[in-house]
C-alpha cells in the first residue's frame, strides 16, 4: 500500500513538474526555440564527446537549441492533453449521463453512437480531417476531442445507471427538483470520481495521438516544437546521431508514464473499479 502511494506521488510529481516547465517555459529555456543557427547544426549533447554546456541537449539539423525546443514542446503536449480532455469529456459525459439517466430510446441512441465511434478507424480519420481542414493546433484539439469521447460516455452511462436508483435521487425528485437540477446537482457530482480517472487515461492517449499525427506530418505544423514533430525531423539523422530521437521520445514516454501512474494510483486510492 505504501509503495502504491509512493508511485501515485511519483506520477503526480512528474505531471506537476512537466506542467510547471510548460508554464514557465520562456523563463527556463536557455535559447529561443525557433532561432536557427546554421553554423551550429546537430551539435551533440554535453554528455557526448564534443558537447558543450551552451547546448545541454545539443542542437537539431537547423541549429535550434534542443533543450529549449523540448521545454516549449511540453506546452504543446500539455495543452493538447488538457484541451482534448475538456472537449471529449464534455461530449462523452453529456451523452453518457443522458443515456444512463433516461434509459429507453435515449440510451439506445447513445449506445449506438458509441458503437459507431468505435467502428471508425481513429488515426485514419484524424489524419484525413487534419489533411482536409489544414493542420493547426486548434484543428488537432477538436479532431481528437471529437474522436476520444467514447470511454467517458461508457463510464458516465454505467455510473449514472448505478446512481439513478439511489435514495437521494428519489428524494430530490420528491422534493420537486427539476430534471436538470437532478442531473447537474445530484448525479454529476456523484459520478465524478471515476470520470477523473478516465480523464487521465484520455489525456495520455491524446498526447500520444498528437505526437503520432505530428510525426506523420499532419499534426501541429512546423516550426512548432511538438515532441512528435521533433522525432519526425530527427528521423533522417537517427542512424548517425540516435539522441535526436531519444531525447524527445523519452520526454514523451516520461510524461505519459507519469499521467498513467497518477491515474492508476488515483483509481486505487478512490476505490474505482477498473474499467475494462
Amino acid at each position, binding site marked *: 500500500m505504501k509503495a502504491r502511494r509512493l508511485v501515485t506521488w511519483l506520477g503526480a510529481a512528474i505531471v506537476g513538474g512537466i506542467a510547471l516547465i510548460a508554464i514557465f517555459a520562456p523563463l527556463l529555456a536557455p535559447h529561443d526555440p525557433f532561432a536557427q543557427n546554421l553554423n551550429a547544426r546537430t551539435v551533440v549533447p554535453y554528455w557526448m564527446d564534443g558537447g558543450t554546456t551552451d547546448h545541454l541537449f545539443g542542437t537539431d539539423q537547423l541549429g535550434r537549441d534542443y533543450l529549449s525546443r523540448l521545454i516549449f514542446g511540453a506546452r504543446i503536449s500539455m495543452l493538447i492533453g488538457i484541451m482534448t480532455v475538456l472537449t471529449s469529456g464534455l461530449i462523452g459525459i453529456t451523452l453518457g449521463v443522458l443515456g444512463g439517466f433516461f434509459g429507453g430510446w435515449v440510451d439506445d441512441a447513445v449506445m449506438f453512437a458509441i458503437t459507431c465511434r*468505435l*467502428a*471508425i478507424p481513429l488515426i485514419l480519420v484524424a489524419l*484525413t480531417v487534419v489533411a482536409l*481542414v489544414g493542420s493547426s493546433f486548434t484543428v488537432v484539439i477538436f479532431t481528437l476531442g471529437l474522436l476520444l469521447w467514447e470511454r467517458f460516455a461508457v463510464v458516465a452511462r454505467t455510473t449514472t445507471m448505478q446512481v439513478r436508483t439511489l435514495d437521494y435521487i428519489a428524494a430530490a425528485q420528491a422534493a420537486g427538483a427539476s430534471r436538470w437540477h437532478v442531473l447537474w446537482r445530484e448525479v454529476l457530482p456523484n459520478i465524478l470520481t471515476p470520470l477523473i480517472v478516465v480523464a487521465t487515461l484520455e489525456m495520455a492517449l491524446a498526447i500520444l495521438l498528437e505526437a503520432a499525427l505530428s510525426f506523420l506530418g499532419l499534426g501541429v505544423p512546423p516550426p512548432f516544437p511538438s515532441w*512528435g514533430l521533433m522525432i519526425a525531423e530527427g528521423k533522417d539523422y537517427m542512424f548517425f546521431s540516435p539522441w535526436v530521437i531519444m531525447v524527445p521520445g523519452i520526454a514523451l514516454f516520461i510524461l505519459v508514464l507519469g499521467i498513467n501512474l497518477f491515474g492508476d494510483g488515483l483509481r486505487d486510492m478512490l476505490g474505482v473499479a477498473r474499467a*475494462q
Partner: protein
Amino acid sequence: MLLFLFRRALLALLVCLTVLVISFVLTRLSGDIAISIAGPNATQQDIEAIRRNYGFDRPLPTQFVEWAWNAAQGNLGKSYIFHVQVAELVGARLPVTLTLGLTGLAIALFTAIPLGIVAAMREGSAVDRGTGVIALLGQAMPSFWLSLVLIIIFGLKLQWLPISGAESWDGFILPGCVLAFSAIPAMMRLTRAGMIDALASDYIRTARAKGLSRASIVLKHALRNAAMPVVSIAAVQLGFMLGGSIVIESIFALHGVGHLAWESISKNDFPVVQAIVLILALIYIGLTLLADLANAALDPRLRAS
C-alpha cells in the same frame, strides 16, 4: 438465440450505414473537393472541368446515394491518382496489412496470456508486480518511437532483422512486435483478472478436491473460463491494430493498406481514403460481431439477455 442473432446483425447493419455516411461526409469537409484535386496551379477552367467530370456539381445527397449504392455493390469508384478501380488497389494491399495485424495479434496473445496466467497464480508476488510494470511501460510507449528505437537496435546495431519492406517473412517481426506491444497491457490485465476470479471459484475447489494436477486445473478448467473476455478483446484489438497500422506501415515501408491510406491522404485521393475508412470499419464491425457470437456460443447466459 435467433432473436439475439437477428438483433446483433441488425445493429451491425445500422452501424455500417452510419459509417457509410461518415466516410462520405469526411471527404467533403474541405468545402470544395474539386479545388483540392486540381492542386495549387489549376485555372478556373480546370476546376470547372473536374467538377463536371467527377459529378461534384450535383447536389450532395444525389452524390451520396450514388456512391453508397455503388459501394454496396462492391464498386468503390476509381482512384484519382492511379486511375484504377479502388477495390483492386486496396485488394492488392490488404494481404500485407492482414499479415501484419495477425502477426501482431499472435505475438500479443502468446506473450499476454502466459504472463497473465503466471501473474494470477502468484498474485502479489514479484512476478505479478513485474508484469504490472510491463503493462504500464507498454501503455506509455509511443508506438512510432518504439519502432524507430527497435530499428536502431535490431536493424542497425545488431543487424538481426530487416528494417523495411515485406519481401520476406522476417520483415514482419519488428512491426508485429510494435503492434503487439500496444495490445499486450489490456490482454494481460484481462487474463490476470479472469484467472484470479476463476481460480477462486467453486468448480476449481471441486477440481482440486478431486485431486487433479495443478496444470490440468489451471489450463483446462480455469483458463477456459478466463479466456472468454480475452477472446472479445483480441477481436477488438485486431481491429484497432489494422486501423493503427498506418503509422507502423509508413515507418517500416510496408506497402499495405495503411501506407496506401497515408499516400492517398497526402495526395487528396479521396475515393481511396473513403474506401479504406469503410473497409477498416467493416472489418472491425465483422470482428466484434464474430466475438459476440463466439461468446454467446460459449456462454448460454449471454443469449438470454
